[in-house]
């Protein structure tokens, strides 16, 4: 694996390899010294053209726990505001020879473009409304630790699918792991022909009880102003996942940040069924695994470090069973 651009590029075994590696790194996070030297001397550049707190800090933490150097570059307050193009920004920053660039932009396909302009490994940390592959990987990780395996699970993705890169990556990733995916939301926010990705489509939540996992999407306020739905009130009445709609055996997920009272009611966010903070926690170890995979892991031949091949940095502890591929 040279880049992580789209979840579509990962087959099931690659997803499982990354998840297994993340499980090994999870042990590091519980140590007093939360750091391994796996990527010492490597440079990870976070290049963010959109506001992001959790994704950026999660990548930053992940890189630092692997002992890599991290440079954060935010488009606001930079030469980008002086009109520098994406290409020139990337070429300029590439002069510092980063080993990996973590890229977040509002434009679909930007990471593919950047991968052609420089030699660093590119990690797509969200490109417009298209993809957010590390979110999909951390969601698979979280679900696997909850359910053991995703095979045969019924996963409902509820809300604004049209504007959600999380939805698009997860529809693919969950199916690749053997789950059955249904998307549900207002007809104005379900893209025409989304079913060509293999998912079922529903416009109401009457069959929600059949789901094993309910994945609620963030309903952005600006969508209300663009009249995609008549009102927050009506949206919540029809699509809010709340105590009445969520059945006790279901797992509740959300990519954050949550709008309490809109897509989720407060009581379900706080319920033990919600794994929302577990998702955030998973974010760091999964991104560690992704960076490790790209910068020193198996399959990274073109960018293999000089010297002896790097062993997995953590010995599996006797208490942690080695994860079995599902």
């Amino acid at each position, binding site marked *: 694996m040279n880049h992580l651009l789209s979840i579509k590029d990962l087959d099931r075994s690659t997803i499982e390899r990354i998840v297994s590696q993340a499980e090994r790194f999870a042990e590091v996070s519980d140590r007093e010294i939360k750091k391994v030297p796996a990527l010492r001397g490597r440079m990870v550049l976070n290049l963010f053209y959109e506001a992001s707190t959790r994704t950026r800090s999660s990548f930053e933490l992940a890189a630092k726990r692997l002992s890599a150097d991290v440079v954060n570059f935010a488009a606001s307050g930079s030469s980008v505001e002086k009109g520098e193009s994406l*290409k020139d920004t990337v070429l300029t920053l590439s002069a510092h020879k980063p080993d990996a660039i973590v890229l977040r932009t509002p*434009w*679909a396909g930007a990471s593919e473009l950047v991968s052609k302009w420089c030699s660093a490994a590119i990690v797509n940390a969200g490109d*417009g409304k298209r993809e957010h592959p590390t979110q999909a990987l951390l969601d698979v990780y979280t679900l696997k630790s909850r359910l053991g395996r995703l095979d045969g699970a019924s996963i409902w993705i509820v809300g604004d699918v049209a504007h959600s890169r999380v939805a698009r990556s997860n529809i693919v990733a969950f199916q690749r792991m053997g789950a059955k995916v249904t998307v549900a939301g207002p007809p104005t926010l379900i893209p*025409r022909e989304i079913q060509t990705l293999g998912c079922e489509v529903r416009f109401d939540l009457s069959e929600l009880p059949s789901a094993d996992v309910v994945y609620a999407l963030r309903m952005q306020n600006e969508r209300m102003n663009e009249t995609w739905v008549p009102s927050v009130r009506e949206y919540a009445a029809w699509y809010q996942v709340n105590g009445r709609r969520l059945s006790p055996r279901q797992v509740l997920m959300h990519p954050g940040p949550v709008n309490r009272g809109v897509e989720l009611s407060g009581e379900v966010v706080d319920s033990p069924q919600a794994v929302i903070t577990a998702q955030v926690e998973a974010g760091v170890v999964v991104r560690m695994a992704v960076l490790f995979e790209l910068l020193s892991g198996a399959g990274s031949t073109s960018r293999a470090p000089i010297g002896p091949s790097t062993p997995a940095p953590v010995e599996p502890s006797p208490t942690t069973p080695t994860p079995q591929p599902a």
Partner: protein
Amino acid sequence: MAAEPLVHGSLQAADLLLRDVHVLDPRSGIDARRDVRVREGQLAELAEPGALSQEPNEELVEGRGNHLMPAFFDPHVHLRTPGQEHKEDLDTGTRAAAAGGYAGVLAMPNTDPVLDSAPLLRSLRDTAAREARIAVGFVPAITRGLEGEQLTEMAELRQQGAVGFTDDGRPVTSAGMLRKALQYQRLCGGVIALHEEDPTLSRGGAMHEGAVSAALGIGGIPTISESTMVARDAALAGYEDARVHFQHLSCVASVQAVAAAKAQGFRVSTEASPHHLLLTEEDVRGMDTRMKMNPPLATEADRQALIAGLRSGTIDCVATDHAPHAREEKEVPFEQAPMGTTGLETAFAALYTGLVLPGIIELGLLVERLTAGAALFDLPTHTIAPGEPANLTLIDLDAEWVAGERGWESRSENCCFAGRKLRGKVLMTVCEGGVVYRERAFSVVGA
């Protein structure tokens, strides 16, 4: 007396003997090998191969059975002048046209400033008389500044040589505004050419709304954005008995709407572009910005409807919508890129390779549709017959080339067919009796 609609730079009237060329002119019905003589820029003689011998001061062109066709005419190109000469100008744009076998093009008015006044039209025509390699007609705006609010001085523009009127790049959103233009056409004439798009349906879109846009999360433009406007404006044209030309059709429903309007006897015509006839939304999956155009590439069913329309005559002609953009403008993420592909240099070869070689349409039909645009705008049709001005293109149908391999005559390189292996290469183009293009490796004997 109105000005001549077409202008070109100075051309030297050629004396040529094209020996043993395969003449193909679907209108005059010739499809056979001939010797063809051009004297002082006029077609002088057509004779059996070997019957004509070289005269003094005559250039001999060995045809070797290559096809001689009436030069093509494109009623829809963007020459970007004035204001956007970094994309194209009258020289580079007409050079690209000549290299594609074209001897006439109509330039769209979405320039900066917009071509919407007689002084600007005069100045552009003056520039064309110096720089244009082939004949150029200018199609000024229907509404001032393409704003859709006030008619241009259409009558004066017509006197100064306006071929027709269009707000291309934008629709005339208001039906009331368009109706006034159609009524005013009774005074001044001039075909009204329409870019059909309902902005309330297309807003936020960067590609066709369908399976690929759903997968990529890129805002979609639904085909109804075009087809509902075609249907609306066909009804307006029928009501006002106006002459309307629909530009760059892209979908099934638009073809149906035009067919229905024609069946009612409305005076409507239409065009389709090589890219809509050959490519689909699947070609956008890689987010190559050269595949981003307006209207967007649609589905295979839409493409098939366009081909059927081209065959049946519902679609009257091929137009490239040649839309050059600078490299830095296209070398950005897909959603940020401007819409448009160049097309003049590849139109014939792409369509020959994609539609004629597989047996989908006949070569004669393709040549007819590549030359039909002129008559739609009341301009003379290029014809291969004695006494006609020589507007010719000589094409080697067997030559194989990779689009863009030797660069482009156009200032821009945003061609959706770049890198494709094509068959059929233009060897020579003659416009109004002057040789305007020769393939660089083409050997010329004599003279």
